[in-house]
């Protein structure tokens, strides 16, 4: 029942499209173009977009560039902590196919294998105009009920989970907690 309402209610979709809140988590170079996009010059607040420190209340996760396995763990944890429905925009050529870092041993080559992405922005360091365009596009998709990455993630959880486990090792979630403990006692 919950699903049905989430998908079909036009009113809800309309409301959602007008208040996309962003998690303040930037990775990679693209983060440097976010302050201009957010502040006076380009100003995405006029679309009802605002960055929030609380993961639980955010709808939109921006992946602003290359992703290393260490960051990807945090991205997955953050993404799973966000409430449905949730959306992802990936900036630049690095999340698409690793871009200039294609032969680097520490960047993830295809982000799509690990988490679902709704909108991609091409270009090496996408300009603020491109970011705005992507945001508008995502708003339209949300309004029409087409931004269903979160649902893809739920339905194909096995697939994503398998890829994540292959990259990080089987029980990486547990180990992540262990590792933080390691810092406490050393």
């Amino acid at each position, binding site marked *: 029942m919950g699903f049905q309402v989430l998908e079909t209610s036009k009113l809800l979709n309309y409301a959602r499209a007008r208040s996309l809140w962003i998690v303040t988590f930037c990775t990679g170079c693209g983060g440097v173009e976010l302050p201009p996009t957010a502040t006076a010059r380009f100003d995405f607040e006029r679309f009802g977009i605002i960055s929030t420190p609380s993961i639980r209340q955010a709808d939109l996760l921006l992946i602003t560039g290359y992703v*290393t*396995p*260490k960051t990807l763990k945090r991205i997955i944890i953050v993404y799973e902590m966000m409430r449905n429905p949730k959306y992802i925009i990936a900036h630049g050529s690095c999340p698409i*196919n690793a871009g200039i870092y*294609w*032969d*680097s*041993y*520490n960047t*993830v*080559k*295809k982000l799509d*294998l690990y988490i679902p992405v709704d909108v991609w922005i091409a270009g090496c360091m996408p300009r603020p105009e491109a970011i705005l365009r992507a945001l508008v596009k995502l708003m339209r998709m949300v309004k029409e009920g087409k931004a269903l990455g979160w649902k893809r993630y739920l339905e194909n959880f096995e697939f994503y989970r398998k890829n994540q486990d*292959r*990259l*990080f*090792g089987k029980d990486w979630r547990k*180990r992540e907690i262990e590792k933080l403990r390691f810092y406490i006692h*050393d």
Partner: protein
Amino acid sequence: MIEEELVRKIVEVFSYVEAKVKRVRRVEVKVSREKLPEVAKYLRSIGFKHLSAISCVDRPQHGIFELVYHLWSYENRVHLMLKTTIPRNKPKYVTMINVWPNAFVYERDIWEFFGIEFEGHPDLRHFILDYWDDIPPLRKDFNHLEYIKRKYGVYDPEKEYYLR
């Protein structure tokens, strides 16, 4: 010229070092690995207080690692490269933390990326690499394309670009 004076002074004190002027404000001093700590202490006492960096260069064809200590003297305005070599298998060296405290981060970095043990370093742990499961990555014999193929499963130089 301050560079030549400096070279003369260093060679006078330590007859066993090889010192030369590379170019303006750049001096190179080569010293064997046993003697480096005392030369380092002396250099610090004549004004080389700022350790810019420690670089490690892997030279598998000679079977050595080269360690380069980049020193800067604010009074003389000279950059001095203090070079030494250590054998490549089971690499081990002494720490320089007592001479330049910021050797701490650079030595940890070299331990992580080249696998050189520094005796006396208090905190040799993985700092940047996360669960590293191969030989230290900046060594020349680390095959990064092979590693990418294994870890990310997407790159194969022989066949097509993406496998999946």
